[in-house]
């Protein structure tokens, strides 16, 4: 960059070139942004294992997030039992009348869902292998 070129620039640039590299406000801004970024990252990743995971909702509230590679049995007070086994999740017991959630069997693919309508209970698989933005049509079992 030659000097004649620099002279043509507006005063704003020469001001910033002559000022100290870091003003107190710059450092404050940097600190605030970094804190915000770290907080946001921690906030959005806490408790969520990487890879395929199952989220469980009751009445619209997220009540648990589980790694599908850790075998587990979870019993919910509303009368539902869920099993995680070898990367799949299934509702194995429910006190609902139609038992559609139990008949659904095990799911494992990102975007798959099991619902128990009478209990407002939803299991949904989240993960990175999301091929589709949405699915139309609902398999009964």
């Amino acid at each position: 960059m030659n000097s004649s070129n620099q002279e043509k620039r507006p005063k704003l640039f020469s001001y910033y070139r002559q000022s100290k590299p870091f003003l107190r406000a710059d450092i404050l801004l940097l600190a605030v942004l970094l804190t915000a970024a770290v907080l946001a990252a921690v906030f959005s990743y806490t408790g969520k294992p990487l890879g395929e995971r199952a989220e469980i909702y009751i009445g619209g509230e997220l009540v648990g997030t589980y790694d599908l590679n850790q075998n587990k049995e979870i019993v919910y007070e509303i009368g539902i039992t869920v099993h995680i086994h070898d990367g799949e999740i299934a509702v194995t017991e429910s006190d609902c009348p139609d038992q559609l959630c139990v008949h659904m069997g095990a799911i494992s693919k990102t975007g798959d869902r099991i619902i128990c309508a009478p209990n407002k209970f939803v299991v949904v698989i989240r993960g990175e292998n999301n091929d589709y933005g949405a699915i139309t049509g609902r398999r009964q079992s």
Partner: protein
Amino acid sequence: MPYRLRKYKSTIALLAIAAFFVCLLSGCTAQKENVFFNTDFSLEIEGSGALSRSKKIESMLEELENTLSASIAASEISRINDAEVGVPVSVGKDFVYLYTASMILHESFPSYNPFIFPMVELWNFDPEGFTLSPSGIPSSQEIQDLLGLCNKDSFSFNEQASTITKLRTGAKLDFGAIAKGYAADKAAEIADNTKYVVNIGGTIRTNKKIEVAIVSPRNNGYAASFVLDNGAVATSGDYERFYLYQDTRYHHIIGADGYPAGIGETETVVSATVVGPEAAMCDALSTLVFIEGETTKDFIEALGYSALILTETTYKTIGDVRFELLEPREAA
């Protein structure tokens, strides 16, 4: 700006910038999963006011369910279905919209029938009566006896007074074929200028460009996919609610003769997907196309909608949308 705040100007500016970044990272997107209308509801929304809009959408759905659910005794639908002959029942604007829209379709195609609910109950496909292993199916006599009740002459609607009056004992109404789509359209209205995808039991509305997969009617994967760019889609299938009785599949979409549509026919429709601008229309038309098949072609195209009709071995497309087949099927 008051004087005492002036010296904090830079701090205030910094906080505003920080808030904007935090918002970008988390606050301006929301994701919801719940159950409404006996099916799954999911919402992805990003943009200004995403969180408050998502809450507004959930309360709207709750309200709509309280109006339309046959399982809730105080709902408008229950009050009508439980009403005595000759007693007017007053209804709200959601009901008026759904009734009017259903009637327009019903007059063009009587098989699109909001009055078929007594027959749905006879076949045990209503949410309360449904069972995976029924002890029997209705006799042809039972079906004939009930069929006369399942048409528009069973009710009279007074538009000015917003009332509906039952004219025959036992007649019942339901908007199961259009309610999910109507709800998705109302959600889209609340989501407004944010970016959203709302999915109510497979009836989808979005203002984004997304790839949508259509569930395979017989296998575990997907039958087809297509690009949905700012619009809606709905699918009706014989695999969505059905039972097997003596090795025959009986599904929940009842045709004009009182039997599950297409039963006993060869190469009958097993799945009908309709794509277009409005979710309510897609929802209703998917049921119509499932029952009537490709005879609806001109009607669907005139409305500016597209469709994919699947039988077990063939496919047929209507309209401009390009569907990518993911399972082997021959063009019909």
